């Protein structure tokens, strides 16, 4: 038989002014199961809590109801006090007679009756409360970072500097991401390579970072603190341990005319290659599609010239399993292509711009490679078609971005700034050239950003035309740009030597596939979704997974780095304890009733529900039932209301508890 203790708080006069607390105490005292009932001026005060603890011990109370303010205010306080007195904290409930009663009603009689009802309801509920043990899950203090752009690099370095091991997985042969491709960076115009490569080297040399390049995530299992990740390390055809990075192989490879993706396909590379000279690791990869050996079985020159004998044509893809406690996703972005019209995608491409067929219409990233001192032209701005220096150059902003009719309605955020940067770089390199910019608006919020943009007009003589371009076409060796200047209200036609398009920042191709492996959500464009747009911007709703950089939405470098460090801080918070403690409000499956329909699995937004086999002693499969992983369950209870056989139950909110409350009314 339960011995329930009920404590009615006056809250100074906040409750007692409208609610007759003594009457509530005496009425509730008559309730079956209530062994002790009293009222006190301030229950949450020290003497109030002492009164509660003493009563528990002296009266041998088994369940507690504190009728006072909202549980959102003091539930933790009273549960702690109850625990200190030796009871399980989940045997204590609060009845809200302040926010939901004394403060919102003036009529004393009505308020008192309502308070009696509310307390009575909680008394009936608490009778059905069960002892709930605190749930602890162990934490593996290693983390996985997916993507080795500046976001992944920053997060990996921060976590590793705190002494925790990091597994960094990069899909390409080298880390660096887009930042490694940039020439100079706004708003300070420092050279990207100069600030980026030292960080890349730090990653390579860090004793706590294990780097897997040319690798991808194959499978993710487990939950916060306890993930198992299978990584596919693609065959490089070069033994990383033997290779010294001398590069002799690359000078001898006869396949020299393969477009280099890192140079936006305007520069060429060999079949055995590193994407760029400062690559980390500095170990070449054989591109098997273009290698003569792999195509014809002849050649093998690289193998012959390699001193340490590192070239290995037999190398196979390998699967590696790593155990980690936290995951940072930093897979970055891709760029909109005016040529593309992918099937089933809202992206429309730009037929009016020749669908990418005019050779001297390039995108912003290609311009970065042209302007880069280590790029294919050695930093000279030259036309891809004939290698001539363009004297009239037109930049067009918002290509794809903010263009609902092209399939994207958001702003790509970095294009206004990098276009301003491009006009400056152009002016520095082609003194007698003229740059024009077609723009809709100049969006330059950010420290020193607007000043930077103004400089491109005021000091670097870029001509900004507010308006859209309706058509581009080749005429002789010129590109005719037809647009409108809406500020003046006239049509403009420019015969340009080169056109640079500020194409939209988009999620990586395959971002959705990776998200499905991780069990994280994404928006309609496939940018990854944070748990809360304002208050939890670096966490995924899936516990233990964090976001950094442009994979979550368009970002510049300062923002990317801030978010990466924030994600690292979140990982370190998780790693600061050996075990994770969590409220035991989780769902549990009554296996006996479960029919294995997995309706629950479909509605669980957290992927907390797994399939579990039930076997008899001989090991014969009896049935497959649902199992709720308590480490992952968030405690929403949606599964319970969905289960057709009433076999899953949310601790703390069982049907029994709720029905008891309804029946008390």
């Amino acid at each position, binding site marked *: 038989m339960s011995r329930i203790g009920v404590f009615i708080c006056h809250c100074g006069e906040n409750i007692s002014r409208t609610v007759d607390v003594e009457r509530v105490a005496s009425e509730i005292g008559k309730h079956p199961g209530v062994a002790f009932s009293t009222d006190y001026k301030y229950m949450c005060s020290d003497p109030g809590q002492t009164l509660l603890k003493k009563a528990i011990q002296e009266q041998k109370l088994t369940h507690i109801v504190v009728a006072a303010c909202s549980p*959102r205010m003091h539930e933790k306080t009273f549960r702690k006090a109850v625990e200190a007195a030796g009871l399980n904290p989940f045997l204590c409930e609060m009845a809200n007679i302040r926010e939901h009663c004394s403060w919102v009603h003036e009529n004393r009689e009505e308020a008192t009756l309502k308070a009696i009802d509310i307390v009575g309801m909680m008394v009936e509920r608490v009778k059905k409360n069960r002892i709930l043990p605190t749930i602890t899950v162990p934490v593996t203090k290693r983390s996985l970072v997916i993507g080795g752009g500046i976001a992944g690099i920053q997060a990996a370095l921060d976590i590793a500097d705190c002494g925790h091991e990091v597994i960094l997985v990069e899909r390409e042969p080298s880390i660096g991401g887009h930042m490694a491709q940039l020439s100079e960076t706004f708003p300070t115009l420092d050279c990207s390579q100069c600030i980026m490569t030292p960080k890349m080297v730090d990653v390579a040399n860090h004793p706590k970072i294990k780097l897997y390049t040319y690798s991808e995530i194959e499978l993710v299992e487990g939950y916060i603190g306890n993930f198992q990740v299978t990584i596919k390390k693609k065959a490089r055809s070069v033994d990383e341990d033997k290779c010294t990075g001398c590069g002799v192989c690359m000078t001898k490879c006869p396949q020299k005319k393969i477009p280099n993706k890192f140079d936006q396909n305007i520069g060429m590379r060999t079949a055995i290659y590193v994407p760029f000279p400062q690559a980390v690791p500095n170990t070449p990869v054989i591109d098997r599609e273009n290698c003569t050996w792999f195509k014809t079985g002849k050649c093998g020159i690289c193998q012959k010239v390699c001193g340490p004998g590192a070239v290995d044509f037999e190398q196979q893809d390998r699967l590696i399993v790593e155990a980690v406690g936290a995951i940072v996703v930093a897979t970055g972005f891709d760029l909109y292509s005016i040529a593309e019209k992918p099937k089933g995608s809202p992206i429309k491409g730009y037929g009016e711009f020749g669908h990418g067929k005019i050779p001297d219409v390039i995108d912003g990233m290609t311009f970065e490679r042209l302007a880069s001192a280590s790029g294919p032209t050695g930093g000279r701005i030259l036309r891809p078609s004939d290698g001539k220096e363009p004297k009239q150059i037109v930049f067009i902003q918002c290509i794809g971005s903010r263009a609902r009719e092209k399939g994207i309605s958001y702003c790509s955020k970095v294009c206004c700034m990098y276009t301003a940067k491009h006009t400056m770089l152009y002016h520095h390199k082609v003194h007698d050239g003229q740059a024009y910019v077609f723009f809709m608006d100049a969006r330059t919020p950010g420290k020193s950003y607007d000043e930077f943009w103004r400089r491109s007009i005021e000091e670097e003589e870029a001509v900004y035309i507010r308006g859209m371009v309706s058509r581009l076409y080749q005429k002789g060796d010129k590109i005719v740009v037809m647009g409108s200047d809406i500020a003046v209200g006239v049509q403009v036609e420019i015969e340009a030597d080169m056109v640079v398009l500020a194409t939209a920042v988009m999620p990586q191709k395959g971002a959705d596939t990776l998200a499905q492996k991780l069990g994280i*959500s994404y928006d309609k464009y496939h940018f990854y979704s944070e748990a809360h747009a304002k208050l939890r911007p670096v966490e995924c709703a899936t516990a233990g997974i964090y976001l950094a950089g442009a994979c979550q939405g368009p970002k510049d470098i300062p923002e990317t780095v801030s978010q990466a460090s924030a994600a690292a801080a979140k990982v370190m918070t998780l790693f600061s304890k050996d075990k994770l403690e969590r409220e035991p409000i989780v769902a549990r499956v009554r296996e006996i009733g479960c029919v294995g329909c997995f309706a629950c699995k479909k509605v669980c937004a957290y992927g907390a529900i797994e399939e579990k086999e039930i076997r008899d002693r001989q090991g014969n499969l009896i049935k497959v039932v649902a199992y709720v992983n308590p480490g992952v369950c968030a405690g*929403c*209870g949606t599964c319970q*209301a969905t289960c057709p056989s009433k076999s899953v139950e*949310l601790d703390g*909110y069982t049907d029994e508890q709720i*029905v008891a409350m*309804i029946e008390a009314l």
Partner: protein
Amino acid sequence: MNQTTQHGFEPKIIAFVCTWCTYAGADLAGTSRMQYPANVRVLKFPCTGRIDPVFILKAFQQGADGVLVSGCHPGDCHYIAGNFHARRRFAAFRKLLEFIGVDLSRLQFSWVSAAEGGKWVEVVTDLTEKVRAMGPMVEFKELALEEQWSGVIDTPELKEAYNAI
């Protein structure tokens, strides 16, 4: 309904709310000292997704004259999508209720966020007044007598059936 019975009638309203949005909104109404009729009794759930339509039937059986279900606005669910599941579930459930002859004006669904103390007051006041004008709900109280609650395995037959598995 004649004037006298209507005058003496105070409806019983039961509200099922989620803890993150509507419960917090009702708290805000309290801290802002807004006033509303004392007829409502609030039951707190982690999420509207946890609310089983059976609870609504149960509330009507227990003598509720009006039931309110309220949670986070679409897209604001603390548990990502619990309220969407709830919405879908209740859309179907309303049709059933209508089919068995319950006046749907007694059952109100709403979204009240943690910042909408005023909206909570409005919703509760409106429902109370509407139901007060409708008079007591009788149809379901009779059903309570022939109790057939499937939520707990408490009949000997059911227990036996389970043990046999």
